[in-house]
């Protein structure tokens, strides 16, 4: 039978064939595994709504407020009883807790030490020494944007 017993060259050939084949399969796995893992949707599932566009005008009823993420810091957007919007940093000027809107009090409140701010961000009661830094609210059609004062 030609090729039997296998010569040196033929031996080398089959070694090479296995080396090439084996490493190719390993390579294929190393490439395809990340691709398939990538395709699997992560647990969180969805991207969070951005901090700059806060939502739609109809999402907010008068005398309501919401804390949103603005970059890496929290911001609070409120809709006053008269329907107009205002936005401020949600970082309390006392010791940097996150403030919230209290519809029952009709003002912005800090849970840590009972600090209170009026709807213009001015500190009116409790330990906060300064008003909340205001942000600009821009209404484009139905969408609400907040931006740092340029």
């Amino acid at each position, binding site marked *: 039978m030609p090729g039997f017993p296998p010569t040196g060259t033929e031996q080398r050939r089959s070694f090479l064939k296995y*080396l*090439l084949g084996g*490493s190719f399969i390993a390579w294929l796995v190393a490439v395809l595994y990340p691709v398939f893992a990538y395709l699997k949707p992560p647990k969180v599932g969805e991207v969070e709504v951005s901090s700059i566009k806060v939502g739609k005008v109809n999402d907010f009823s008068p005398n309501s407020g919401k804390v949103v993420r603005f970059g890496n810091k929290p911001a609070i957007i409120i809709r006053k009883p008269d329907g107009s919007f205002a936005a401020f940093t949600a970082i309390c000027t006392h*010791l940097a807790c996150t403030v919230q809107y209290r519809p029952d009090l009709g003002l912005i409140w800090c849970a840590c030490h009972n600090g209170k701010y009026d709807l213009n961000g001015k500190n009116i009661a*409790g330990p906060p020494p300064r008003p909340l830094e205001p942000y600009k609210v821009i209404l484009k059609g139905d969408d609400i944007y907040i931006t740092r004062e340029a």
Partner: protein
Amino acid sequence: MDAFHTKRRKNIFLLLKRLLSILAATFLTILSSSHTYAVAHQRTIQDQCYACHQAMGDKPGSLYGRDIHHKIGITCAGCHGGDATAEDPEIAMSKKAGFVGVPTGNAVSEMCARCHDNAEFMKSYNPLLPAGQYAQLKGSVHGRASTVANEMVAQCTSCHGVHEIAKVTTPASPVYPTNVVRTCARCHSDPTYMKKYNPALRVDQFELYKTSVHGRRNMEGDPKVAECASCHGSHDILPAKDPRSHVYPINIPETCAKCHSNEKYMKPYHLPTNQYEEYVSSVHGVALLKKHDTGAPACNSCHGNHGAVPPGVQSVSNVCGVCHTLNAQLFEGSPHKKAFDQRKLPECEVCHGNHGVQHPTDAMLGVGEGSVCSRCHTLGDTSSGYQVAKVMRLMIDSLTNRQGLAERLLKEAEQKGMEVSEAFYNLRGARQSLMEARTAVHAFDLATFKDPLDKGMKIANQAVLDGESAIHEYYFRRWGLGISTLIITVLAFGLFLRIRQADREWREKQRRM
């Protein structure tokens, strides 16, 4: 001239008077050289104006004898102008002699200022007397225009009197410490009058003052205690809202300390004098005096203004609670309120101190060394205080540690280039929980305390997980790269050998062709 007042009589009379004047002047000069009042100029011994008016018995005439100006030899002409040497009223009170009559409005104070604003001149009478009061008055709130006519609200004479001006250091003066309160109250307790200037200004200061310690002692005749001028100033009074005022919040501690930090001054009262020192280094002091935060309390915020009195033992939490509402509320619902009041312990002050109150730290909580709870609570006491304190401290410590761990891990991950901004953002919640927990301590009840703590722990634990997985991911990537590179190297080697083989075959084929 009439039958009596003949020219000859007049001349003789005048001559006699002149001789007498010279004699008396010489006599008095010798006498006065040892007097504290040095005389630099010729003095009229006989104030003809006064002589006449006193004889007439009118108000100025009867009062002026007691006046300090009269005693040092200033005649009526000194303020009214004219010729004090002249007996004849027509000469004495003539325009030619410079008589101005009764000055009105600002002319009054300007008249006083002619001497009193001249430092050189005043030194010749009393080197210790200040000068420049008129300038101060003009710049003060009393220097503003009054509602009648074009003059200042107050003239010098409004407070010092007119013809019976006494040295301010004598009880006869209306501005002597025991009198000044009533002098100020003449206007400041009159609502109808004050309404014309500032309808929002209170008019009960005097009434309040009477209830205060300062007021009571002042009524008893003590000139050392604080009265209106001690705090508000005398000539340079400014509204409390004016940053230059002695009673502007940032200036108040210093104003009170003028007396209250003076050991010698306060000795007879047996009061401590370290309050200012303590206050300056306290949280409130630093906030007010260094950071200029006028929301921070000065002495009057806790002690009151005119009705100043240290708060009673059972009212301490009310006073502190004016600003620290949440803590006060929790305290008042806590078992400590009844316990402290029963033992006459001054509530907030027991743990936090009063004037020297510092930033509270976690070290104050618990039963370890330096804790305030252990001052009363010991192992085995009947209340559950010891246990509660111990557990509270343990819980707060564990959250602080967990949060610290999370921060370290996330920082490390961030340094390694991993995206952890969202985890940092969420970790803020742990910090907030710690703050809320530290406030919740004041309920001295584990159930209330656990709420924010559990919330915070959950957040911190999640952040620790996020940090760990981020760091793990970092290493995983490097390992993954290493393994992939290994595989690729082997495959590349295999390819290389295959290329060599193909080249060999090609060369052979070429040779055969």
